[in-house]
């Protein structure tokens, strides 16, 4: 028998390609992904229809007799975001909370379930036995999370259009342009990278503890929630898109490196 054994060297790119193929295949076969997309599609339609129906209704506090007038959305685009400068003055009312930015929370749930599943099912054992380098895992999960999150944002946008049409809310752009809306959506999509990098980091740190990863990710999202309307207002320009893109890439690289380090320096089962 020969004294040495030769092992085929697989490049990082080749390994990443197989990892991405597996993760995409898994995500597109996973019911949870379609449930999330469905939720993202239905929520805005429900919110728009319900708030339009409730708009102007008065509720009276029986003890103090104080009257509260329920205010709904004035136009469809408010469900996507607010115009720059408005958000700082806005209180935490329905219109500031129930909008597309909720999708960042939903993305947290998707990513946490996706990664925790790897560890809970024991799939991580199969995976990390044959993969000494953890970078491809982190990159793949970040990209998958990003695509999943972007899909949810787009689904929410589509749901908003449908909900607006059903509820009869105006689509009037006012001072905005179609370009602003496109830039706003692009900025939100790229900003998703920042959040996904955080969710991946929390998930690989907590491994099979799904509850811990969801709590951690939602907590981090809450801390950064107010940043979203500031970074991605309805009147976004190319600057907003660039800032979100650069921020997303930097966060992904930085936090991705930390995630890789955690996987390399800690036990995987």
């Amino acid at each position: 028998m020969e004294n040495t054994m030769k092992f085929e060297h697989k490049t990082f790119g080749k390994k990443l390609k197989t990892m991405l193929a597996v993760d995409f295949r898994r995500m597109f076969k996973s019911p949870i992904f379609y449930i999330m997309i469905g939720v993202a599609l239905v929520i805005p339609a429900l919110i728009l229809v319900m708030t339009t129906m409730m708009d102007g209704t008065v509720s009276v506090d029986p003890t103090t007799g104080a009257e509260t007038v329920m205010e709904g959305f004035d136009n469809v685009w408010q469900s996507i975001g607010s115009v720059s400068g408005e958000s700082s003055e806005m209180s935490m009312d329905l219109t500031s909370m129930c909008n597309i930015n909720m999708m960042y929370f939903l993305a947290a749930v998707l990513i946490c379930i996706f990664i925790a599943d790897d560890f809970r099912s024991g799939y991580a054992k199969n995976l990390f036995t044959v993969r000494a380098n953890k970078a491809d895992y982190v990159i793949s999960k970040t990209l998958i999370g990003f695509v999943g999150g972007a899909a949810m944002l787009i689904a929410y946008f589509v749901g908003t259009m449908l909900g607006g049409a059903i509820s009869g809310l105006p689509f009037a752009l006012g001072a905005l342009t179609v370009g602003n809306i496109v830039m706003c959506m692009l900025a939100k999509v790229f900003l998703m990278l920042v959040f996904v990098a955080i969710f991946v980091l929390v998930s690989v740190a907590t491994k099979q503890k799904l509850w811990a990863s969801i709590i951690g990710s939602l907590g981090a999202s809450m801390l950064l929630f107010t940043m979203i309307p500031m970074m991605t207002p309805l009147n976004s320009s190319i600057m907003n898109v660039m800032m979100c893109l650069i921020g997303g890439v930097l966060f992904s690289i930085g936090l991705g490196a930390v995630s890789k380090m955690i996987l390399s320096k800690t036990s995987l089962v």
Partner: protein
Amino acid sequence: MNAVEIKGLTKNFGPKQAVSGLNMTVPAGAIYGFIGENGSGKSTTEKMICGLILPSGGSIKLYGKDYTDADVRARVGVLIEAPGCFPNMSVWNNMMLQASNLGIKNSETEVQKVLKMVRMEGAAGNKYKNCSLGMKQRIGIAMALLGDPVLLVLDEPLNGLDADGMRIMREVLTDITKDGKHTVIVSSHLLGELQKIATHYGIIRHGKMLCEMTAEELDANCRTYVALQTKDMNRTKALLACKYSRVEEDEAGYLRVYDAKSPEEIVTYLYENGMLINEIKTDKIGLEEYYIDLMNGGSSSAPAKQSHFPSKSKEER
């Protein structure tokens, strides 16, 4: 060449030392039976070999390279505790997922091949969660066999298998190691089954390697005994006890005499004392008894010593 070479391996979980200065040598082409009590450190060692948990100290080399070498690790197959499968996916999809992970080109053909090896081709469409424990073990083996691994690490692969399943498993493991290039590390509490396939053994206790030996060395270490049956076993036992230092009754109802020179000597002795023998035979203690005896510090085995195996393939042996 050694498939696995471990020196001074240590693993601490907080104040508890699960593995303590373990040395282990697994020659390429061997079926290495890794034996030890519950909590002795078998699974921890196997997980460290697979890179799933980090050692606190010591070194692990796989085929002469560090265990973190990505190219070597890509050729390791593993079944530790339970197969890593998604419960809501079909067996086929789980297998295809792992095949994609390994970057196997003809993944469908390869998956079919390994499922056929473990006689699970008929259950490919079943959801993994609906499979029985034995089926899951076979799926785990099939998954570990994907991608033609040069090193297979199997932790209790015989758990939950029926007699046919065990036979299949034996056939699979002996078949893949025939060429001398594939190595299997298998831990099991079913020592009788292990003895049928293992070419090398390592016995671990309290995180330390008690001894390593080849199947031939085990055979030499296991003492022979004379087993006999008479009509009056109590009187026979009393008679034999007068002459021989170790006389025991086994589970099958035989009296075992460990230090007799030959059966003829016993026949003559009992005949002289008016005792007729119904049946007499010579036999050797098995791995199970050897192991139990070793754990109890008994004397039915010759003193075991830490051996370092010559790097030979099975054909050479």
